[in-house]
């Protein structure tokens, strides 16, 4: 059985008519988030020396001992994606603020890891902010916060510095739901209203 793209992507969660009706909404939003995440990941891979130490998945646990051997690693993932209407737009335009997290994790014999992590963070910020459109997928990108954490629980001190970027992108409502208005049926019940239709007309929109 061949699945449509959305059903294939969602493991058949959306199929048939539901898939067809929602494909614009779901594919558009998933694709935009994924595209921004991919652009950030690719930029860091191509423009830094940490290519094989950048992970776009959070499902594989990191091993502190391995990090101590190979050096700091970088995680890229997306967090919140808030949505609001932009007023004075017809059709409506949705303004999304997507939080993209870039985490630098190090594990070394050094107890003072903040300076090295800050140096890496400076390079990461320069790469991510170089293209604020994230490959044409966003309107703006800003650094919204940095969070440093240190633990001595393991065999080596482990430190992380998470950079959070607020990435703004816009989505036209027409792109989400499809603009398929073709005909309006109008009925007139002249005053005083008596539920009797005195006139009726069809307004047909031509492409």
């Amino acid at each position, binding site marked *: 059985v061949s699945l449509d793209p959305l059903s294939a992507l969602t493991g058949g969660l959306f199929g048939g008519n539901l898939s067809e009706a929602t494909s614009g909404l779901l594919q558009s939003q998933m694709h935009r988030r994924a595209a921004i995440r991919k652009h950030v990941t690719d930029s860091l891979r191509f423009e830094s020396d940490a290519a094989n130490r950048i992970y776009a998945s959070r499902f594989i*646990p990191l091993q502190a001992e391995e990090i101590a051997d190979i050096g700091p690693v970088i995680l890229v993932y997306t967090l919140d994606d808030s949505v609001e209407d932009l007023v004075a737009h017809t059709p409506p335009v949705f303004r999304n603020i997507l939080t993209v997290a870039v985490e630098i994790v190090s594990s070394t014999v050094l107890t003072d890891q903040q300076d090295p992590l800050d140096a890496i963070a400076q390079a990461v910020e320069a790469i991510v902010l170089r293209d604020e459109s994230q490959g044409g997928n966003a309107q703006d990108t800003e650094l919204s916060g940095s969070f440093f954490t240190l633990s001595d629980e393991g065999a080596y001190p482990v430190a992380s510095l998470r950079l959070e970027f607020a990435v703004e992108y816009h989505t036209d409502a027409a792109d989400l739901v499809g603009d398929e208005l073709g005909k309006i049926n109008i009925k007139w019940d002249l005053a005083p209203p008596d539920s009797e239709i005195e006139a009726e007309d069809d307004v047909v929109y031509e492409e």
Partner: protein
Amino acid sequence: VAWTDLEALLSTTIRASDLGEPITYTPTGGGAVSMRGSFAPQSVVVDVNTGAAVISDRPELGVHLADLAAEPLMGDSVTVRGLLFKVIRVEILGSTWRILHLHRLAS
């Protein structure tokens, strides 16, 4: 048998058994001491506020005070299984044992 005698007997037995193994303990500013300790590394999830779990081996070493000239201190070093560690924290376990939390050092 007095409790203290029983405790001393147990401590001696533990160190001499397979629970103990040879280590070299070097106090800060002091000479190295060959002794036995109970080395028990265990895997832990290190919480550094990351999106992915970070897993590490947490090396812990139990030592008996009778084998040392003084209380173990943070910053002392110890060699176990050919690996060099630094003491980063000392926990008291009863009146005669200390649990040392260790960090790896470059050998």
